[in-house]
Structure formats: C-alpha cells, structure tokens
C-alpha cells in the first residue's frame, strides 16, 4: 500500500511537471506573437491605463462632494479600485483571450484538433494565449494600491499581504469560472462573442464598495449568484481592516468552489454535445 501511494504521488508529480513545461511553451509562443506588433502592444497598455485613470478620476470627483460612501473613505475606495483593477488585469492576462476565443474554436471546428491531443482539453483551451500587456497594467494597479496604503497609513505584515494575494487569486478564478461558463454557451448558439463581452459590465460592479448596497435583490444576486461584490471587496477589507467577520472570507472561498463546480459541469455537458463543424 505504501509503495502504491508512493508511485501515485510520483505520477502526480510527473503530470504536474509535464503541464508546467507545456504552459512554458505556450508562454514563449505568446511572447513571440506579441513582439511581432510592438507599437500595438504599447498602445494597448496606454488605453488600459487611460481607463484605469478614468475610474480613479470618477472617485476623486465623487469625493469632492462627500466624505464617505457608506463607511468607506476616499483612499479605501481608491484601494478597492486598485485591487479590482489588479484582479481584472491578472484575469485578462491569463484567461480573457482564451475565453473569448472559445466560440471561434467551435465555429471553425478547430476544437477537433485540441480534443485529439493527449492533454486535458480544458487546460489547453483555457491557457492557450497569454496577454502580456495586462501584466504591465496589473503592475500599475499595484502602484496605485501602494500609494493608497501610504495615504491610509497601512503597514500590513507579510502574512496579511500573502492572505490578500491568496484572496485575489480566488477572485481571479471566480471571474475565470464564470466567464468560461458563459463562453461555453457558444456550443449551443454559435454567436456567443457578445455574451462574453457582456461580462465586462460585471467588472463595474466589482469596483464598488459593498457598503453602498443595502440588502435587497441586487446585493443578493451579486453576492450569492454572481459574487462580484465579494471578489475585490473581501481582499481589500482584509487589508484595510474592515472585515466584519471571518465569515466573509469563507463566503468568498466557498463561492469560488461553487463557481468551479458549476463551470466544470457546464463545460462537460457542452463538450458532450459538441458535433464539430466544417471539417
């Protein structure tokens, strides 16, 4: 028994290394692709920074006319905007292109080739491309967060920062699980691109302080169905010490698990009824 569990662990380790090597190859591919269009690469970073600046400008204007939104002060909200931008950009870097390209793979029938490869198809579909510019934008979000932390006189310890990052990862994964689920709709109706871009509207909700929403349908939907009010609020509240109870963290992690289960079920059901096209 001891020997068999030992060999199973060994096999698991080998599998992990294989997928890590594969992901490395996909990364190199993306770098080569991006460097083919250098001006474009820089211009896109500029566009994203412009939009980020817009959101901060919005908050700056609002706080000209009020001292607080519910319990949130100005720099706490700036921190929130920074964190949600960070989460959104990491999500964009790793997953966004892949989610929005899924409908194209289905429409052209190129998914056939990916299904045939001896690799987990969801892994390949989800990680095919990396958007490197988004990492630069994520860095700009970190800069804003550090500035906001200075303004708030925060000096978080290493444990707090690590916990914050772990919760951010949970947030990124929630975005991924949900958008991937939306993208699988393309197996049923081919024109799903619009649906994927519709998800962009949800990011707006993730940027807002949860305290602004009184209990009601809106708050319930965006906490327990599409947990937008958790993904960036919970990590920031942990960082600035606004958490009302550790239950909020448990809720975020719990919702991440729920989203994973539903997303995986949706993907499996979709692939099962895939009937190729064009080839």
């Amino acid at each position, binding site marked *: 028994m001891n020997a068999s569990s030992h060999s199973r662990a060994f096999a698991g380790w080998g599998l992990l290394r294989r997928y890590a090597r594969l992901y490395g190859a996909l990364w190199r591919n993306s770098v080569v692709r991006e460097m083919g269009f250098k001006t474009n690469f820089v211009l896109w970073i500029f566009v994203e920074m412009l939009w980020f600046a817009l959101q901060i400008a919005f908050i700056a204007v609002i706080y000209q006319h009020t001292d607080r939104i519910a319990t949130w002060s100005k720099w706490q909200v700036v921190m929130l905007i920074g964190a949600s931008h960070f989460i959104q950009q990491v999500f964009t870097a790793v997953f966004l292109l892949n989610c929005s390209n899924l409908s194209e793979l289905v429409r052209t029938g190129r998914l056939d080739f990916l299904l045939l490869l001896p690799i987990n198809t969801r892994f390949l579909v989800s990680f095919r491309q990396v958007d490197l510019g988004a990492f630069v934008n994520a860095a700009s979000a970190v800069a804003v967060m550090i500035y906001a932390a200075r303004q708030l006189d925060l000096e978080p310890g290493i444990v707090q920062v690590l916990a914050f990052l772990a919760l951010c990862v949970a947030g990124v994964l929630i975005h991924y699980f949900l958008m991937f689920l939306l993208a699988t709709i393309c197996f049923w109706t081919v024109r799903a691109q*619009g649906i994927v871009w519709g998800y962009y509207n949800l990011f707006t909700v993730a940027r807002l302080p949860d305290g602004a929403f009184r209990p009601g349908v809106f708050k319930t939907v965006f906490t327990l169905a599409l947990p937008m009010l958790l993904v960036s609020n919970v990590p920031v509240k942990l960082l600035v010490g606004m958490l009302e109870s550790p239950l909020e963290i448990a809720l975020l992690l719990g919702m991440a698990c729920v989203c994973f289960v539903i997303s995986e079920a949706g993907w499996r059901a979709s692939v099962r009824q895939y009937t190729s096209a064009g080839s």
Partner: protein
Amino acid sequence: MNKYWHVVGVGIQNTLVYRVNFLFRACFALIPLMATIYLWRAIFASNADSPQIAGYSLATMTSYYLLATIVDALTAVAEDDWQIAADIKDGRISQFLLKPIDYLAYRLCLFGAGRIIYAAVAALPATLFIVVQRSHFLLPSDGLTLVLFLASTVLTALLQFLMSYTIALLAFWVLEVSTFIFILFAFEYIAGGHLFPLDILPSALANALSYTPFPYQLYFPVSIYLGRIAGDELWRGLLIQSFWVATLFGLARFAWHRGIRRYAAVGG
C-alpha cells in the same frame, strides 16, 4: 435618394439578425446603470443633512443616468467604426469608388438603421427599468423642452457618427485602428458625461471641457431635458452643437479625400 432608403431597408434586415444579441447587450448594460444609481443613493444617504449634492437632488441625479442611458442607446456608435475600418483594410471600399453611391451617406443610413433596431429592442428592458424607478424619474417641464431635447439628440447622433467615422478612416494610414477607437471612447466616456454629470466638476474644468465637442455627445441633450440648461444658454448650445457637427462633417470629407489618394485596394 431612393437608393439610400434601400440601404436603410437592407441595414434593418441585417441588424434584425442580431436582435437577441441586442437584447442581451441592453440587459447587461442595465447592470452598471443600477450599480451607479445605488452608489449615488448611498452617497445621498451618507449626507442626509443636505438634500442636494452639487445642485442635484436624488431624483435629478437618477434621472440623469436614466436619460444618459436612453440617449446613448439612440445615438452611440456600436460596430460601425469597426466595420468601416475593416472595409478599408480588406479593400472592400473599392466597389463604392465605382458605384454612384456616397460612402459616408451609405454608412450613415446603416448607422441609422442599426440605431432604430437597437432602440426598439432596448425599449423593453429600459421601460421596465424606468417603471421600477418611476418615483425618481422626472418628466420634462414643457413641450418645447422635449422638442429641443429631441432635436439635440439628433445632432448628438450625427456628432457621434461623424466622429467615429473620421477615426475609422485612420485605417487608410495605420493597420490597427482599434486602439484609437478605444482612446476616443475613453474621452467620450468621461468628458461626454457618461460617468457623472459634468457640472459637478470644479467649474474651471467644466468650463474647459465646454470648448471640446465631447459634452455635446451626451451631457448637453440630457441637461436640456432636465431643464438645467435653458434660455439663451440653450440656444447658444444648440448653435455650438451644430457647429461641431458641421466641423466634423468637413473633417470627415477631408480625411476621406486624402485617404482615397493613399488607398491601395489591398486584396480588393
């Protein structure tokens, strides 16, 4: 003239294919709207001792965002700029150089057709939403205000279209215009009044913005409706808005003529 009516007809048929997509988009667009309205409610609740913030009551502020959404549905350029850029890049505009049809007029007809269908589809969720929010929704003070609001909305649509058209013509000179489209969009978004009414800005900044065409792309018609711009200021504003439409029309014509000279009909 007849041929352009035909283009409108074709445009309507083409966009009807996307009606479900439009419905989805209109519904999704209500989410940020709701979020913004709730945000302002929380701000008004946090300042319960003052019923007005920067000259806005809660009802006026809510109406501002609702109207901005309606004007946006009626006037915003959706895919037209991408399609124009693609027409140029793929050499599809060659056929327009041979036919007795004006490309700008042709695109304007398609834009009009697209807006009519989108507005018709979006009317359903928008009306439902306004019914829910009716206690915060203000009606215009009199008939003339409504007429001027509608006139200004038409000018806004023309302005939106001409600006996007001109930017899309950059495709004659550069390969990728999408970044330029997004940069323009960002300016329209903040300086046009999508994010917040422009008169809550510090007055120097609001004043500086009034020398750009952006406020006339959304903020101006909405302010007419709400009665925040009236009298001489209103008529002067309409004049300036018409001036911007004329200027951009000239610019669009100019860009087209210069562009055509560079055009190489790739693959066409």
